[in-house]
């Protein structure tokens, strides 16, 4: 029995140490409840684990709140520079302008319309199906992903999903806990120099690694889809745009692909979640002819 308790505690501590996020808090609580039910640990022990888990998560969340919009912006700029180093830009001014108009209109109806510099969108000249967003409001979308969009409403859905990641501060949550502690110390003591640069360097590394290699957790992806649905509805786009683009991606994505296929849950899972959440049946996007003409003019031949 003691051995089991030891391993359980070890697992829980490891999970908290490496992830330190809301998802871990939920998982830890669930595992503890199950262990308590099966008699692996006593109710007192379970209560104590849950209490310390909640305490760690609270402190962690407070540390993440230390990031002001200005600091998120500076993290975002460097993450953007790393992304632009990996992918070439698609330089067409009118097409990028078209996407920025959609993005900035969506941001206006969001719960966080004002961020330090505002939201900016740039197309990446890559056939890979992917999109990225930095905490500073830089949104990147590949040509490959734009080719999965059949309407402006679908493009808006992709951008609204990325705005969702920014507003829910998913990127900041990718920064490792020990770095947040270090950051907190520099804020209090105003120590700058090498230590702060080291923390910044580490934070950029955590962020880009998560975006390019591992991806956000599934709950974060589903949460960003929820925001996307809300923004589409608020602005007046057809919310079916999200399901539409996910359906095309489901057909196009190869599970062994790098990029989006590797870092996102399967599109069908997301479609199921969206439809279940909204309680509606998918129907093809209704987009006025004038909107479709400008979509085709800008994205049709990309």
């Amino acid at each position, binding site marked *: 029995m003691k051995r089991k308790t030891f391993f359980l505690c070890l697992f829980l501590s490891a999970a908290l140490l490496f992830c330190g996020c809301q998802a871990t808090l939920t998982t830890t609580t669930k595992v503890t409840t199950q262990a308590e039910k099966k008699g692996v640990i006593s109710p007192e022990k379970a209560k104590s684990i849950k209490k310390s888990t909640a305490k760690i998560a609270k402190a962690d969340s407070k540390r993440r709140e230390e990031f002001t919009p200005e600091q998120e912006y500076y993290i975002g700029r460097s993450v953007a520079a790393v992304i632009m180093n990996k992918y070439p830009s698609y330089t067409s001014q009118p097409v990028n302008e078209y996407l920025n108009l959609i993005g*900035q*209109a969506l941001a206006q*109806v969001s*719960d966080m319309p004002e961020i*330090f510099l*505002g939201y900016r969108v740039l197309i990446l000249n890559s056939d890979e199906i992917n999109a990225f967003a930095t905490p500073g409001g*830089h949104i990147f979308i590949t040509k490959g992903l734009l080719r999965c969009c059949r309407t402006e409403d679908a493009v808006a859905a992709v951008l609204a999903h990325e705005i969702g990641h920014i507003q829910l501060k998913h990127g900041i949550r990718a920064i490792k806990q020990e770095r947040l502690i270090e950051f907190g110390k520099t804020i209090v003591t105003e120590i700058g120099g090498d230590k702060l640069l080291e923390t910044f360097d580490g934070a950029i590394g955590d962020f880009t690694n998560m975006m390019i290699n591992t991806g956000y957790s599934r709950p974060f992806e589903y949460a960003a889809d929820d925001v996307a649905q809300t923004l589409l509805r*608020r602005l007046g786009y057809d919310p079916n745009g999200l399901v539409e683009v996910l359906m095309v991606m489901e057909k196009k994505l190869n599970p062994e692909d790098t990029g989006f296929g590797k870092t996102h849950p399967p599109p069908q899972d997301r479609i199921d979640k969206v439809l279940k959440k909204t309680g509606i049946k998918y129907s093809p996007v209704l987009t006025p002819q004038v909107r479709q003409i400008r979509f085709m003019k800008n994205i049709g031949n990309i």
Partner: protein
Amino acid sequence: MSWIRISLLAALLLCAFSQPLFSATKEFLSVQVRQGQLRSTPSFLGKVTATLAYGDKVELIEDKGAWKMVTIRKIKGWMHMSALTTKTIALQAGKANVKTGATSGELALAGKGFNAKVEAEFKSKNKHLDYAAVDRMERIFTFKPDRVQAFLKQGKISPEGPER
């Protein structure tokens, strides 16, 4: 008079006198974005009447959901709450640069945490990164509110959600 009555009376008097005191307390907020726009109405459709700088301290006059009526230097207007913070933002030198919306390299901000200085140090260690491309991305796609509204109108996109 019993102690209970005296206590009740004291509590009532305290409430009566403290109310005006609390309501008279001024509440201040700071602009936490590079350029905060003051609008004539609590909506993104409202005309921009003034642009405030990062760190400007404004007084809260009225609260209407996500929109706050604020005042500074005898100017009044509505600002979205995402542009404001209850924290005080201490600016060092270079405030004028912030006001003109100069590029990040020219900003000299609070000196705490991640800022232009840290970015410059990071940049010098990562010379392969092209920050000029990031500057371009940030600079080019800035639209006036009318342009966004015209784009929505042209695409027959009619907002149905909360106030903008």
